């Protein structure tokens, strides 16, 4: 059974903290994605990676960075968390651009 695992289901962080969201997939997929989802705004792509150490900006990369040192792991980093980054964060992986498999999501609250 395919699996995309996000490190935390719920997270509460303080403004200004550096936050790491981790995502691991066990399907040997080339592509990995980070999205955020807010009510009324759908899923918005933050960053995606198509290979180890390769990344491309999505629609809303400001305030975020990513790291992909190994094929199975894709990390999203909030350099200095702000309250407007309170959101649901979803990680996904896919083989080329076929069916994407999603993790269970991380609900991040920045206070």
């Amino acid at each position, binding site marked *: 059974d395919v699996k*995309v695992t996000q490190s935390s289901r719920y997270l509460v962080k303080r403004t200004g903290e550096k936050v790491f969201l981790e995502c691991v997939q066990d399907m040997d997929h*080339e*592509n990995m*994605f980070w*999205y955020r989802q807010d009510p009324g705004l*759908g*899923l*918005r*792509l933050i960053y*995606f990676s*198509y*290979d180890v150490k*390769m990344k*491309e900006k*999505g*629609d809303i990369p400001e305030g975020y960075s990513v790291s992909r040192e190994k094929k199975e792991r894709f990390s999203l980093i909030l350099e200095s968390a702000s309250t407007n980054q309170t959101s*649901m964060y*979803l990680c*996904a992986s*896919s083989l*080329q*651009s*076929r*069916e*994407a*498999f*999603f*993790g*269970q*999501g991380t609900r991040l609250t920045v206070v």
Partner: protein
Amino acid sequence: LAKTTQPISMDSYEGQEVNITCSHNNIATNDYITWYQQFPSQGPRFIIQGYKTKVTNEVASLFIPADRKSSTLSLPRVSLSDTAVYYCLVGPTYSSASKIIFGSGTRLSIRP
């Protein structure tokens, strides 16, 4: 990536067939059409994908006319558990380094 347009919301009743149409006038030759379903507090789940004519699986059917400028997701005999948001996506599938972009989706509500 081709832009997609789909209704914001739809309502139906249990046991009915539901058809959700998506417009993608600028679809490219190597683009596929993919539909996802999302329940609250979960990530989207792949439903079906097609290139032309008709595709059917155990969950849904996808109808694509010859000009490929639109597509229709058909859900047969819906139940309450089909209440979800449905997303239509268009993009190259057998291509690395290609983003997967979601639109606003269609919020489907099924009533008893």
